[in-house]
């Protein structure tokens, strides 16, 4: 049901675009099911649907003899970049303690990649590395102080490993479905603890290891409702937030002693 509605929406969007675009380079269109995701107090995560359509009659898709290979679609989503602290534990007097730390910049707070087909050849690897497609190809830098390339690599790997474990980095190569070689869709997991901010979506249309077209689109993840107000109040007016928290506790404690009063 959802799928058929979606498909008809896509076809509709597609028809409009084809009519309006005419013979220009617009050889595919895409859209996301939501442009703003609101995290309210009952948010438990969400699935986003990214869908699109390829215009197989577009000249740019068929006319060039130099570009060989099969069509492929790659979707990349990046959350806002935030500096991270990576810490390394070692044994101190029998106890595991953080003994090294390094500030790492350049890592997206959220990362998602999916593709229609899976290729492993060298040309693809080069293309993916260039465009930071795949978590392993994310570029990160160390901030402050000298650090050896081996150490930076260890910290980078730690970020990727932890982010995957925390369900903030997703790699789902081969998961995009393509209908009639025209309509494609993919489902994106947005977990409950997703960082807020502006997200960038990039959809690559590839033939072999060549980029035919790229479309980018932002979407936003915001906190709304009580959750947002509480969070903002706690950071903007911490003193009054603390005072409020104490007052609530005092009232609750007093109310409890009244309700359960035994004498």
């Amino acid at each position, binding site marked *: 049901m959802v799928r058929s509605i979606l498909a008809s929406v896509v076809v509709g969007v597609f028809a409009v675009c084809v009519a309006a675009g005419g013979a220009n380079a617009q050889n595919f269109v895409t859209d996301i099911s939501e442009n703003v995701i609101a995290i309210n107090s009952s948010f438990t995560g969400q699935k986003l649907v990214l869908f699109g359509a390829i215009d197989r009659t577009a000249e740019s898709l068929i006319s060039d003899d130099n570009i060989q290979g099969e069509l492929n679609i790659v979707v990349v989503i990046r959350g806002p970049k935030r500096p991270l602290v990576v810490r390394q*534990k070692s044994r101190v007097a029998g106890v595991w303690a953080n003994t090294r730390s390094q500030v790492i910049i350049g890592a997206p707070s959220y990362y998602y990649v999916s593709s229609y087909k899976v290729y492993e050849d060298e040309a693809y690897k080069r293309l993916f590395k260039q465009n930071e497609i795949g978590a392993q190809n994310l570029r990160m830098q160390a901030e402050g102080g000298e650090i050896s390339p081996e150490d930076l690599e260890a910290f980078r790997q730690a970020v990727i490993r932890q982010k995957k474990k925390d369900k903030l980095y997703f790699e789902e190569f081969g998961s995009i479905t393509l209908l009639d070689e025209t309509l494609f869709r993919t489902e994106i997991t947005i977990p409950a603890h997703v960082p807020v901010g502006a997200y960038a979506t990039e959809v690559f249309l590839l033939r072999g290891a060549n980029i035919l077209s790229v479309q980018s689109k932002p979407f936003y993840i915001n906190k709304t409702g009580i*959750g947002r107000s509480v969070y903002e109040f706690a950071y903007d007016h*911490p003193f009054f937030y603390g005072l409020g928290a104490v007052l609530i506790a005092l009232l609750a*404690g007093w109310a409890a002693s009244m309700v359960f009063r035994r004498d």
Partner: protein
Amino acid sequence: MNVYLPIAELSVNVFLFLSLGGAVGFLSGMFGVGGGFLMTPLLIFTGIPPAVAVASEANQIVASSVSGVMAQWRRRSVDFKMGTMLLVGGIWGAAIGVWLFRILRSLGQIDLVISLSYVIFLGIIGSMMLNEALRSRRLARQGIQPRRRKPGQHNWVHGLPLRMRFPRSRLYISAIPVIALGFFVGVLAAIMGVGGGFIMVPAMIYLLRMPTNVVVGTSLFQIIFVTAFTTVMHAVTNQTVDFVLALLLLLGGVVGAQFGARAGQNLKGEDLRALLALLVLAVCARLAFELVAPPADLFSISDFLEK
């Protein structure tokens, strides 16, 4: 049903945390203890960041201490003068504790310090309680009354200068150990998210020689102010007070405490203390194991905090 904790930035199950509050409330009602020293480690076990667990638990203790002190106040078993002197030290202790907390957090050592403090204090208190409970149980079985210290007996504490009169406690003692005790417990409140009753009560009885009938009320009285101050300080300095979390825990806690108090009346004092000691030691062992067991990943990541 899930609720989003705005400061912990986690979506959690409402019933899990209500029942966690209820279970710890039940135990604290049954044993007559605050429960902070059980709640904070349990929150950490469920995945709440330790810094948020400590600060939010301080917030919850404000509520449980208020409802506790009301009953004591009606029985006139609060020594307000003693409580105020303890507070003088307690506020300073909490302020320095929160400041230390901030530094340790930016150094990435706060989780370790919280765990280590718990292992040390739970270990000491648990084994002392177990030892004492087993001994008095053995004595009770042999029909011997345990030896009680007379209130008139003095120790080194009573030789210190700056003496003050505490009419409600019928004491004329130096203010120095009182303020020092308050200070020490204030630091613990800020770093461990406890009220500190488990240190305060024995110290009042054995060190200050206060009459036992005013000990609990006075301890609760000063805990309200120290934890209230700690909550505000944590909110200002670390932004780690999650009042939605605190609210969930105290709703469960209030109800649990009532049932616990009733259940406790059917158990013998020594058995009760032995049970509590075992529980304390179990939490201690779990935390100690996590400190010494090789971690699954030597690396961890966290958001960069501006210093």
